[in-house]
């Protein structure tokens, strides 16, 4: 296993989502990127080239681990096998942060592998907060919880998403990965004010920000992570930086992955906005 002791675990500036298409370029050119984020679900195997490459990247860059399988809002018991594997990866890669989403992915032990919505209620806020605490205890570290993008709302919902986030922060002590694109996508899909959302998020809890591109569909915005960041999301990001300060920010791109330089140009835009903040 690699010696990681020479790198601190803290991250700052604008990082990039690490995708296999870019490994070779990163190995060859050693680009000046402050940190990379890995999709933890792609490294769940017992061994092989992906985790070997990730360890090689980790020798030169701080990493964060971002996943979709915790199923924090599922009525199913926590998947301890999944969490054990995640713990193993975290031990190997020593990430600055481990994060997942405010969502559920399985029902009665059957997995959808997608981030599904649930009603925001007094019961679910306590339930999800308890699950976050259990995950943190199991992993032996804090996790960041990300706000999802969503395409529907339930009659049973009793509070706004930002009130729900306030609740889980208060009850579990967790920190937040704030996805600015997701706020905007959900704001358009459900007709709320994204700036009101930003103002309600506890400023001291936001430890990481995500930026990505959505796709405009007939009647809704779809969170594809397959485009450059859109202008209204940049505007919202600027407001977020004013409120939360220079929070480490990630450029995410998951579908139709472009060349590495396109990712870096998006990162430079975010860096420029970050520099404007005192």
């Amino acid at each position: 296993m690699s010696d990681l002791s020479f790198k601190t675990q803290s991250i700052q500036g604008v990082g990039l989502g690490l995708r296999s298409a870019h490994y070779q370029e990163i190995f060859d050119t050693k680009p000046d990127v402050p940190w990379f984020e890995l999709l933890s679900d792609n490294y769940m195997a017992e061994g092989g080239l992906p985790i070997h490459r990730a360890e090689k990247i980790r020798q030169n860059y701080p990493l964060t681990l971002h996943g979709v399988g915790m199923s924090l809002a599922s009525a199913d018991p926590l998947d301890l096998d999944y969490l054990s594997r995640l713990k193993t990866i975290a031990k190997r890669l020593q990430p600055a942060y481990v994060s997942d989403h405010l969502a559920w992915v399985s029902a009665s032990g059957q997995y959808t592998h997608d981030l599904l919505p649930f009603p925001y209620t007094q019961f679910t806020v306590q339930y999800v907060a308890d699950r976050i605490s259990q995950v943190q205890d199991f992993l032996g570290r804090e996790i960041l919880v990300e706000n999802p993008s969503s395409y529907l709302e339930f009659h049973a919902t009793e509070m706004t998403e930002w009130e729900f986030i306030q609740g889980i922060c208060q009850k579990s002590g967790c920190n937040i990965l704030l996805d600015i694109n997701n706020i905007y996508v959900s704001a358009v899909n459900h007709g709320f004010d994204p700036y009101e959302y930003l103002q309600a998020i506890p400023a001291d809890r936001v430890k990481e920000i995500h930026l990505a591109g959505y796709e405009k569909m007939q009647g809704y915005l779809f969170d594809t992570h397959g485009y450059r960041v859109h202008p209204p999301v940049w505007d919202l990001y600027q407001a977020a930086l004013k409120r939360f300060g220079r929070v480490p920010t990630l450029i995410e791109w998951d579908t139709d992955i472009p060349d590495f330089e396109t990712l870096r140009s998006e990162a430079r835009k975010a860096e420029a906005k970050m520099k404007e903040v005192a």
Partner: protein
Amino acid sequence: MDDQKIETLDALKCLQDEFYHAIFDAKTATIAQTASTIIAAGELSPTERINIYRGSILGGITSALTNIYPVCVKLVGEEYFTHMVSAYLKKYPSSSADLGRYGEHLPAYIAEFKPAQDLPYLSDVAQLELLWHKAFNAAEDVFSKDGLRSLVELQDISEQEHARMEFCLASSVHLFNSSYPVHRIWRVNQDEFQERYSGEGSVDLSEGGAKLLIWRGADFSMRVDVLSDDEYQFVAAFLEGKSFEDIVDMPFNQPVSDILQRCIQTGLVIGFKLV
């Protein structure tokens, strides 16, 4: 809608189970039940909103299986493969949070999948791709763990210890005995083959079956090797846990030392243990 309050774990479980069935069973009644829990607002109906999630879920799972079974997708086309995955999902729901583990019943499912009967070799191609996927993701062999020692340490073994010595294969090894030349079908459908030999990719099914070894080298390179009958029996005996003493006594056509030598040269035999 007071009757839809989510105040207990049972209520949450009920809502999520119904949502799951609205996605995967897609029956009118189950969709209507879930649709009644969703706020009707904006341009989209509750059902259309459920459909967004169905498309996203099926797209994500199909994409994951496409990554495991790319040659099958080439052979049948994306539309056909997507249809097959939808049917497969109903019979074999995913039972692990790790999407990389999903789809291991697909080769057997294809063998029984009536619309695919005119491609009798498709199930075997899928099996080859599944074994490739497993070998790619297998745990690394770690010397000193579980008594595994490298071959260079053979010189330190005394004559008395020879009887206790067992050779060890790379743990990524999988054998596959197919009735079809699946390795050729697999090879002509690799991207690099298409680039190099554009238009020349044809396979004569009448050439018969193949005994294959699918494994990963120490440098992470992936291998699909065609084995002789002797080599196949030799590796199979190892995987069955037979001792080297017993393997030596098996009726091979060629000297067993030659087979062992080749396995050491290719890196398939990675080390030994004293048992």
